[in-house]
């Protein structure tokens, strides 16, 4: 472990929680379990996102590698991590995919998106009315670092082409995508 990695720093986490009892507690558990020191919690109950999530801002103290473990643990739960420390996942990006999603290893498809390091998958919805061996469709919501939408879309395009999936991209307007 390098010296820098043992220095405790403070980080800001921006999360989005499902509006259900116990969600806040559940989202804080990984922080305690992975050795983070909770400094403050700002729970914006009155400020629901368009999709019905509740934004929460958490300040936490941890060493950089512990902080990374906290973010990893949070990502495995139902919690949407919008911003972690200086990594700002500020822009939302949603795409649709259809085709033989399951047969072409959907989890690999998602990993390939995450591998761009500019996007984190925050929400997935799959519709497979004819069962997993037939054509199915998926909506994938991601948080992307600002300015990286085109890079992330290019990566998704590549995976879609390779796996013969139909991709419906969002309209990205303006020169600062």
């Amino acid at each position: 472990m390098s010296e820098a990695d043992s220095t405790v720093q403070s980080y800001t986490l921006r999360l989005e929680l499902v509006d259900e009892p116990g969600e806040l507690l559940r989202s804080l558990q990984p922080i305690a379990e992975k050795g983070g020191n909770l400094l403050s919690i700002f729970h914006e109950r009155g400020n629901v996102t368009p999709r019905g999530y509740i934004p929460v801002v958490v300040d936490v103290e941890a060493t950089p590698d512990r902080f990374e473990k906290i973010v990893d643990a949070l990502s495995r739960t139902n919690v949407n991590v919008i911003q972690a420390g200086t990594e700002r996942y500020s822009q939302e990006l949603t795409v649709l995919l259809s085709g033989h999603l399951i047969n072409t290893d959907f989890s690999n498809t998602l990993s390939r998106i995450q591998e761009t390091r500019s996007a984190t998958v925050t929400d997935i919805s799959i519709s497979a009315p004819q069962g997993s061996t037939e054509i199915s469709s998926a909506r994938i919501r991601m948080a992307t670092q600002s300015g990286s939408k085109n890079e992330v879309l290019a990566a998704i395009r590549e995976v879609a082409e390779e796996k013969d999936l139909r991709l419906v991209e969002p309209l990205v307007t303006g020169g600062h995508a």
Partner: protein
Amino acid sequence: MNVGVVGAGDVGSAVVELAEAYGHAVTGFADSRSAVVDADGIDVASALSTKRTEGTVGSGDPEAVLDAEYDVLVEATPTTLGDAEPGFSHVRTALERDRHVVLANKGPIAERYGDVRELEAESAGSVRFEATVGGAIPVISTIEGFGTSRVDSLHGVLNGTANFVLSRMSAEGLDYEHVLAEAQDLGVAEADPTFDVDGTDTALKGVIVANLLFDGEYSIEDASVDGIQALPGTLLELAREDGQTIRLLAEVRNGSVRVSPRLVPVESPVAPTGTHNAVQLDIENAGQMNLSGRGAGGVETASAVLTDIGRLSGKQTKR
């Protein structure tokens, strides 16, 4: 103005029918097999009724209209790709005679823009083509009004048939094939809707806009085109759950033309419902400008043709 009309489909017929109300006389009218010509103005009612009953507009040679007495030739024959014939030759003949041309046919201006502009430069006549993009919506004149170099980009829905199919699929949760058959029954989609659903028609309109914005010689070969054929209904359902929908969009920006089904918010100005078209322009200093309305239909498209003729009559021919 004296107007010659080539093409007796929905648009050509509506131009002939409405010309008088706009202060113009029709001196020639031709379909692919026949023509009627009269320097004092043809009998419009009789020509249209002959078209309905006999399938022809008169007894003359269709070529006769090209040599007839007119100030403006309206080219409203079906759009063809590649050499854009016979439309292109009609444009050439009129310009070589120093007459104006108003196009409803997309072929010449989408596929042979450079050739058309070259002929125009040599002619005392001018070429206008408002009706080729967005039907009744003044897309072309808005772009020209602000100046083509001040319009950075355009995106939006430019095909009513594809838009009808997508909005019905979204609203009713129906399959593509089902909605397409329904559209054909309603006359919204043609018996062969290939060019509407595979994106070709939208792409031609995008190419026309690109020719204006980037002053280039774009053709359909330069566009990236993806259609909506057999789009699964589940995709529209997933979009709707997220407050979004899917529209077949043309995007003309940064020197490129792209047509593809795209995810857009339901309340987006470029997500019209039914057969409507809607575009958004990005204009220097003016910002985003939305235009929407009826993008097809004989009378609607004829209104754009007649508006073009009005603009031409405002200025004298150069001869």
